[in-house]
């Protein structure tokens, strides 16, 4: 019987899920730029995936509004193991300019465990690609 090739593929090129929880769309545009041909995160095999059940990396944007907490946890729980969470932008990491407002959770790490933080408002597309490459390394170590 031949070895299952999909096992190796998922080791090096896991799929990405993009989730917005109250961001201003600045980081979303940079993520879209990093997927586009100029920066091209897809050449590493990290395709954008619409369903959480097929993705291993969660790219999260925004300071996590109270209304999105339930939906974010549901999405996180649907992702298969091993999984890696990336917080994109300063709002997602610390709350940013929204910190202390009545409707936000002040950062993603108050809700779910985070593996990679990307700073910047918004971060540049190459920094996002750098973060995704780091997340792939973390996934490899989690798989062992």
């Amino acid at each position, binding site marked *: 019987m031949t070895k299952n090739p999909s096992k190796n593929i998922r080791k090096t090129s896991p799929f990405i899920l993009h989730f917005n929880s109250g961001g201003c769309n600045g980081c979303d545009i940079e993520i879209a730029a990093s997927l586009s041909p100029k920066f091209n995160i897809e050449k590493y095999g990290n395709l954008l995936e619409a369903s959480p059940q097929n993705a291993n990396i969660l790219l999260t944007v925004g300071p996590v*509004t109270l209304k999105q907490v339930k939906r974010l946890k549901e999405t996180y729980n649907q992702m298969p193991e091993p999984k890696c969470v990336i917080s994109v932008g300063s709002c997602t990491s610390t709350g940013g300019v929204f910190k202390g407002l009545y*409707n936000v959770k002040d950062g993603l790490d108050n809700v779910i465990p985070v593996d990679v933080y990307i700073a910047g408002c918004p971060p540049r597309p190459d920094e996002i690609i750098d973060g995704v490459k780091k997340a792939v390394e973390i996934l490899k170590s989690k798989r062992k």
Partner: protein
Amino acid sequence: MNNSTLKNERKIVDKIKKDLDDLINQIELKRSKRIFLITKRENLKKILDYLKNKMNCRMNAITCSDNLNEFELIYHLWSGMKSMISTKIKLPRDKPEIESVTDIFPVANLFEREVHDLFGVEFLGHPDLKRIMLNEDWPEGEYPLRKDWIKNEKKNYGG
């Protein structure tokens, strides 16, 4: 203020003054395309009914502001004659109640739910005054956009 540039606005003001003189306390014409009617809450529905049926107005928004003495509600209507007609009313802070205008403008349903959610203004006769902006498990009786509201660190605000 140049008279010739506000020709259209003055025409509207004259028409409103002629028809609704006893209902309106004051009319302000601050700049082009902006007309403010200041009135009491008992007269609000009659004025909106007139503006809809006679002036061909549509509702754009309901806004609320808090100056620690009273709430100021503003009903923003876009008239068929290319200007914004905004009706201002004031509500006492201890009893913020007003009749709903959903029977005149059905779209006011959403705006009234929003104002009720964030300021705690009661709209009497509204068909379904449930939450729209805040999360589902937000505690009752907390209105975050009131000026004297402070976040209680011991309380659980849901999420």
